[in-house]
């Protein structure tokens, strides 16, 4: 074996080793990227669920009838708080992402809230709007919590 061949062979071996190391690190980077994506998803779902629990507390304050609204309860303010919690939650869940099913439930809840608000303003409240709203928000919270469990590998 000539010295040229030895140099070529050594160069080839070094290149192969470098390629393997590069592939290894690229794989590691990909795994990290996936892990970060997963963590962001969990953080978003948990933030959204927290906000929805606050919305749920506010929904309980809403009157079922326009006739006997107790003095001192500011319904438009409560509705505005719920809307802002919905907006936050909708903003954290990607419309085309893997949690779009939860987003769809929330969109339905948002429509029910709008319908409740219209009923309130026109003094023709439909009590089922409030009941539907409560159950949709509860569904979104439950689904978010279950999804977080799945992402953490606990379910």
């Amino acid at each position, binding site marked *: 074996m000539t010295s040229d061949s030895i140099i070529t062979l050594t160069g080839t071996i070094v290149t192969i080793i470098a390629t393997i190391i590069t592939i290894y690190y690229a794989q590691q980077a990909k795994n990290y990227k996936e892990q970060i994506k997963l963590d962001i998803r969990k953080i978003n779902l948990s933030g959204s669920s927290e906000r929805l629990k606050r919305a749920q507390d506010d929904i309980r*304050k809403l009157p079922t009838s326009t006739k006997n609204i*107790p*003095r*001192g*309860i*500011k319904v438009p303010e*409560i509705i505005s708080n719920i809307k802002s919690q919905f907006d936050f939650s909708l903003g954290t869940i990607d419309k085309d992402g893997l949690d779009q099913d939860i987003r769809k439930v929330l969109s339905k809840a948002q429509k029910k809230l709008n319908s409740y608000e219209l009923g309130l303003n026109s003094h023709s409240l439909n009590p089922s709007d409030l009941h539907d709203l409560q159950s949709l928000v509860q569904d979104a919270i439950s689904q978010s919590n279950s999804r977080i469990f799945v992402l953490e590998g606990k379910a």
Partner: protein
Amino acid sequence: MNIDDIIEKINKLEYQVSTLSECIDSDRYPVQSLILSMSWNNDQLNKAHDIFQVYDEKLEIKEEINWTEFEGRLKDEFSIGYQTVKSIVLAFYNNHQWVDVCYGYAMSFEPTTPIEFHSITRR
């Protein structure tokens, strides 16, 4: 029915109402529980609302509020002490009524807020 019978009947009703009031879950029905514990009628409840409304309107126009005056008005109106004022504020707050006034009053004690008001000030 003579006057003694009527008095006896009223005493009996009072006793029954006070017994019933002990059965009310004050967490779920804070204002109803307050009405019974204070033995208020509708006018008296409305008087309390009127006082809260005055201060709510002051808050809306961002007027500076003297919370000692607010407390004094409730004390004078119902001949009550500071502890009872606290109960009224808590009952309204827990029933989601006049929450801004309740918050303002509770915050006026900062940094030595009574422990009962922590549910309001730490909302």
